[in-house]
């Protein structure tokens, strides 16, 4: 793909040079196509929700996909754009999910939820949006503290250390002594959840937009410079420690928000599932989408969730054609097929779907124009 198309929401192409530097209003003006697309996406979802039965698996995929898209993009910010191979995502999601749960369970439900801890010790609630931000902030705070010692480490060591930290966090949240706050290892539930598919979409798209803005900002360039060559980046006056810390913390902030959304989706929260396997899953999404591609991560999140939760589910049930039983189909086969697909992608498409490219509006327009031209040419001949 042509390098000139690399930027989403247009960083620099010559014609745009003149009007790129303007305030946020200008930004909206410039990216009106993007915003229109986003708005029409919302509209489509709204219409779908009216047209299709609520129970359709499509909504499950859309909801979970939107949440995973956010988490994957946040992981991409850290792993793909800054080159910090962190595997702590599940831990930060856990913090987000718990903070959200703890501070939004209605007071009247606390006695039932904290049944072993006399209703817990936190006896106030905060509004949902505040809780979402708190979830992010708490995750970011932890990330900041973890980052202080850990970010000095090099690639694999960093990976294993962050993985370790995620496990430690999980153990802490399951600790009995913290029970009055975290409900020990028991479920948190009855907190407000979303019913419309639009909700995770709106939250995720806001967050992803912010991440994209960050990536295309001066700081984003600095992150990419660090990824490409730490020594040279430092020689360009980029403070490694500060920028790594920034990327790591911001990535965790959004992972925390993603965790909170996941809690809303699941309707219950428990520390147990937030283990390394979850981080691997997200990492695989990022890899499939292309390390260093935001649109790739988003696309692959939806594909990944759709495959694992929906399209491949038929592999799990014994199927008969007439009286012939299709061999191999049995519980668990879905995952085998799925992991084989993943291995194929990792081995033969190591760039993922998108590589480091992005689907930009310009590229799309050009693509459709080309299609159109081709069409008219064919008509002519």
């Amino acid at each position, binding site marked *: 793909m042509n*390098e*000139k198309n*690399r930027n989403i929401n247009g960083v*620099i*192409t010559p014609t745009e*040079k003149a009007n*790129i*530097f*303007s*305030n*946020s209003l200008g*930004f909206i003006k410039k990216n009106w196509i993007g915003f229109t697309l986003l708005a029409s996406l919302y509209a489509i979802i709204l219409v779908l929700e009216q047209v299709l039965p609520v129970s359709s698996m499509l909504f499950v995929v859309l909801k979970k996909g939107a949440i995973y898209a956010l988490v994957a993009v946040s992981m991409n910010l850290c792993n793909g754009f800054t080159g910090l191979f962190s595997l702590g995502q599940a831990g930060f999601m856990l913090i987000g999910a718990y903070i959200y749960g703890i501070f939004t369970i209605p007071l009247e439900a606390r006695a039932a939820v904290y049944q072993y801890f006399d209703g817990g010790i936190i006896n106030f609630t905060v509004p949902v949006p505040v809780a979402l931000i708190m979830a992010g902030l708490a995750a970011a705070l932890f990330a900041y503290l973890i980052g202080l010692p850990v970010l000095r480490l090099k690639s694999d060591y960093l990976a294993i250390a962050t993985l370790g930290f995620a496990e430690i966090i999980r153990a802490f949240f399951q600790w009995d002594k913290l029970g009055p706050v975290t409900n020990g290892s028991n479920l948190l539930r009855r907190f407000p959840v979303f019913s419309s598919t639009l909700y995770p979409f709106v939250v995720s798209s806001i967050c992803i937009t*912010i991440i994209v*803005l*960050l990536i295309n*900002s*001066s*700081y984003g*360039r*600095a992150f*990419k*410079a660090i*990824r*490409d*060559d730490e*020594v*040279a*980046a*430092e*020689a*360009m*006056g*980029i*403070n*490694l*420690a500060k920028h790594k810390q*920034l990327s790591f913390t*911001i990535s965790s902030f959004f992972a925390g928000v993603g965790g909170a959304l996941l809690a809303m989706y699941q309707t219950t929260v428990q520390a147990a599932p937030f283990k390394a396997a979850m981080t691997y899953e997200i990492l695989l999404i990022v890899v499939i989408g292309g390390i*260093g591609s935001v649109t790739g991560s988003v696309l692959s999140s939806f594909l990944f969730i759709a495959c694992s939760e929906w399209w491949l589910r038929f592999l799990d049930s014994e199927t008969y054609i007439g009286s012939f039983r299709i061999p191999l189909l049995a519980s668990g086969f879905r995952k085998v097929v799925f992991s084989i697909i993943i291995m194929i992608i990792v081995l033969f498409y190591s760039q993922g779907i998108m590589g*480091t490219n992005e689907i930009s509006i310009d590229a799309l327009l050009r693509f459709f124009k080309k299609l159109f031209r081709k069409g008219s040419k064919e008509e002519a001949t």
Partner: protein
Amino acid sequence: MAENILHTEKLTMQFGGVVALYNLTIDVNEGEIVALIGPNGAGKTTAFNCITGVYEPTYGSVSFCGQTIVSNHPQGKMKKLYLGEKGKEKLKRITPTPDRITKLGIARTFQNIRLFDSLTVFENVLVAKHMRAKQNVLTATLRLNWREEKRAVEESMALLEEQDLLQYKDDLASSLPYGLQRRLEISRALATEPKLLLLDEPAAGMNPQETQELAEFIVKIKNKYDLTVFMIEHHMDLVMQISDRIYVLDFGKLIAHGTPSEVQRNQRVIDAYLGVADDA
């Protein structure tokens, strides 16, 4: 004489048992082009790395524009080795990170070109403007820093135009031909708005004609941006042609120093380069 801009005092660097640099004391004055030469493995790049904060020197200090920017005093066994009886000498320990030094106004290039391969030529230069902009992550994300950003872009564009790189601006840095990569690296260093430019073998891998062009280029940018240039170079033509003074290193030690013609006549330098005839 012009004002002193860079001074190293007894700079020493030891890796394990190997002393890569020993008691290096040099001066670079404002507006000069000074060259550091010496055979392979003489410790030239190590000296650069100590000056720019990549390595923490075992002993010695570096001052820039009269201000001490790097300084170390050895501990334990090293102390005996380097301070000897002058152990009472008080040195403040200053070990800044390279980015700090760049911010003070020392820019450098690398022996083996280190560009940001996945960024475009333009972005490579723009990255160097990052540290000078008054912004924080919030204002940058929300584009409230658009004035700063605008300035950075304009300056980078101007710089690229001057270096004849404008036509490649949207190409990936890694896709440029070798010579242009060199030039881009120097442009990128210039974008940090330095007072002192450290060039690490800028002419490596160039043919005589390209080297000649480079010589002119260095002089040109020196005059244009009011720079002081301190460079490591192997191409003697280049060195002799443009440098005001030359320091010669061999096995980590300074063996000669002077104007090009003085150095050219220096027997020790000739020995170091050609080897002593009956070196048993």
